[in-house]
């Protein structure tokens, strides 16, 4: 039986999520035996515009060209899976929606008219239906492997939708909120990373995005009661998954409170 055809494509992103596939060093050659990698620009010069049994999409849509390309790709893919915070929530570059995009472009590029980009950087699901998601910034290699393995075997991938706190406590890490008063977004963030940040003595910054039943007002209140300034807590949400609906309001409030000096018209 023919191996399933795998494609890996990239929009506006840092490459880290695709790289996670290449970071499965022990399994990479095995994966290449189980699937046929027909399109993966970073790793192979073999090209294919489709069809794909499985298409992994990294990055958010941030140019007019990309908005068209994703529609084509959706047609070519039996199963389209978004990987990473950019593809699933827009990513850090999505924060541009809170700002004046044209002023931004002008502030970096002396000839902004030569650059074509959208005022928004949006998740893939805003443009086409998506079959599955891997969250994270970057995605977790264990979750990627679990997804690929489960897909190949026909079982449901285990990608729990629960708080980071479970991973943190299973790992035996000390809670940075309770023991240090740190603003940690773990209780409202979806697990997947293995609770790295608390293991390294800092609070979670929600790069895996919100979990189900995320009680953002409740967490915000708890962190304020423990002594954090409300504006600081809000600013925590203005990160890599800021556009996700449970976080967006707090993120906008945080950025407004931390409004930049220097004006939007600063040029080089």
């Amino acid at each position, binding site marked *: 039986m023919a191996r399933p055809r795998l494609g890996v494509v990239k929009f506006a992103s840092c490459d880290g999520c695709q790289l996670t596939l290449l970071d499965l060093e022990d*399994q990479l050659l*095995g*994966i290449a035996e*189980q699937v046929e990698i027909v399109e993966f620009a970073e790793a192979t010069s073999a090209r294919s515009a489709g069809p794909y049994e499985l298409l992994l999409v990294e990055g958010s849509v941030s140019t007019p060209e990309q908005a068209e390309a994703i529609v084509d790709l959706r047609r070519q893919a039996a199963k389209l899976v978004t990987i990473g915070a950019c593809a699933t929530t827009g990513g850090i570059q999505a924060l541009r929606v809170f700002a004046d995009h044209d002023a931004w472009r002008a502030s970096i590029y002396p000839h902004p008219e030569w650059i074509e980009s959208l005022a928004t950087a949006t998740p893939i699901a805003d443009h086409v239906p998506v079959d599955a998601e891997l969250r994270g910034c970057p995605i977790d290699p264990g979750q990627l492997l*679990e997804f*690929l*393995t*489960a897909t*190949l*075997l026909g*079982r449901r991938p*285990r990608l*729990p*939708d*629960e*708080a980071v*706190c*479970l991973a943190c*406590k*299973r*790992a*035996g*890490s*000390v*809670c940075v*909120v*309770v*023991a*240090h*008063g740190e603003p*940690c977004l*773990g*209780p*409202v963030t979806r697990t997947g990373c293995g609770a790295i940040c608390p293991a390294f*003595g800092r609070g979670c910054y929600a790069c895996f995005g919100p*979990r*189900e*039943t995320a*009680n953002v*007002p*409740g*967490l*915000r*209140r*708890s*962190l*304020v*009661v*423990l002594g954090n*300034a*409300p*504006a600081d807590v809000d600013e925590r949400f203005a990160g890599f998954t800021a556009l996700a609906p449970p976080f967006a309001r707090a993120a906008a409030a945080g950025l407004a409170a931390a409004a930049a000096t220097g004006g939007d018209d600063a040029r080089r």
Partner: protein
Amino acid sequence: MISATEAPAHGPGFLARKDLGALFALVRDDGRRLIGPTVRDGAVMLDELDGPDALPEGIRESQTPGRYRLEAGRPGRLFDHTVGPSSWKRWTFPPTVPVGTTRRDGAVVAFEPATPDAAPLAFLGVRACELAALAVQDRVLLGGPVADPDYAARRRSALVIAIQCTTAASTCFCTSMGTGPEVSDGADVVLTELDDGFVVTAGSRRGRELLERLPVRLATAEERDAAAGGVAAARAAVAANAGVAAPGLPSRLMAALDSPRWADVAERCLTCANCTLVCPTCFCTSVTQRSDLAGAETLSERTWDSCFTGSFAAVAGGNFRSRPQDRYRQWLTHKFATWVDQFGTFGCIGCGRCVTWCPAGIDVREELAAIAPPPRAVVTGMHLPAVTPAPDEAWLRPARVVATHRETANVTTLTLAWEGQVPGAGQFVMAGPPGFSAAPISVSRARRGAIEMTVRAAGPATAALTALGHGATVGVRGPLGRGWPLERMLDRNVIVVAGGIGLAPLRSLIEAIAAERERFRDVTVYLGARTPRDRLFVGELGAWSAAGIAVTETVDRAGADWLGRVGVVTHLFDHAERLPEGAVAAVCGPERMMEATVEVLRARGIPDERIFVTLERHMECGVGLCGHCQLGRFFVCRDGPVFSIAELGDAFGREGL
């Protein structure tokens, strides 16, 4: 080694601190890994220890809901802490344990159960409550129709060296649950720490054999007394904490499945599952699969799970517990009610970890008291037990008037020089001119060195107060009473409603909010007065607005020169746009005005738990001894004057109470 004549076979022994290393060496020689408490990342954690130097010397903890800090304890003491977030469950019931491996080779399939890892361990420093937790888990995991083989193997092989607590954290409630601080059984060896060593007893044959191999001598009478005294001190400390009314709790709790408090706690609960994961008795798990790419070999593992996760009660058609309040109710009722039906004990052993390690600071003791309050135990009979007297509260003392300000025709604010405890917002004082009766007066502003009380001349005593001038002496007692719960208002929208003189006790609340304005959300003050000339603190309203507090006024009736609103104060928000979500309300004014206001607030969606009023009653003493201010089961002077509508219940707004 000790000779037979010195062997403490007939009484507690003593192990010097310097000889603790011998215990470690012995345990290691017996092929065991020693697990005990050690400081890591700012907490006392349980971990494998190399030697006594790893124990937390001179460390104690401060534990309150949602907050844990290490502090300096008695120098040299190794066990002045209580319990940290980790429990022995980590070793008897580890977070991830293999269950079995499935091998597939073409059509041939084999299911190989995992062999338990029974590497022998020694647990050093197991508290009485934790012994109870082990016993509870034994009933769950070994006492049912099917036993868990992994747990059985680990439990059997572990050597348990218990320590009796000689300190307690504010979150401990072992005495409520009957699990401590004294160790009864379940341990191989029991230690009680003194300044220079440990009083030791054996709890099993295995323990006795261990002690015989250590430099243990017979304990002296002083040492035995000191040990007993240490444990008694722990008991007294726990008894002073808030506790749980355990007798009858299961049926009270199951009768309260529709309590409105569940929704209230759900608003605060983050369903983060921390409580279940630090709990030493929670046992819910899931089974996960990990395969190789070809599916030839799949490892199944059992991993800690929690009833707070979204998918815990999910099935193909839906979810039995989708709402946070359903999940919280499941946890609390299981721990304190249905567990009893299942296993014959409470699930909770009173260690307080769930209280400390809840980031939202939810305290199960407080929630249980609100959801399933105990009936007060009735003491009857001729020979009633003696009461230990509470400390005396000093009578009136002199305070000097340093300023006066006439607010209205019959209301004056007196500024008094003040030494001693600064009154909290909402507290009051008993005050009167020399020779007159003292009356309860609201403290309308409190600073270090001076307080302001705002008095309405309603009778001879208060009229005389309002007539006092600079330099006069007033007799005062206080600060008294329970003030406004500012911590319940943090990061919330706040609505303040004041009618007439009712603004006096609310002014201190408004100023406390203005001083830390950014820690609150939207704050709106609604003021009502009879006429424009009856308005209080008129000159300060501008400052409140400038601090970001919205102020809206109305008067009942006015002349032509009043350009503001006219009408009763409830009209100000009765027809306003939606009241802010999650708001807290603070109300004061004439009783009728408060009743009407509470009705409107309730109708607009603010739950009784978050509406606070301050009550005025006839008071003679101010400290709960004269009987005049009784309201139902409360003494307004000491249980109030600030109350939530939820706790007042029927007592509020009822004619003739």
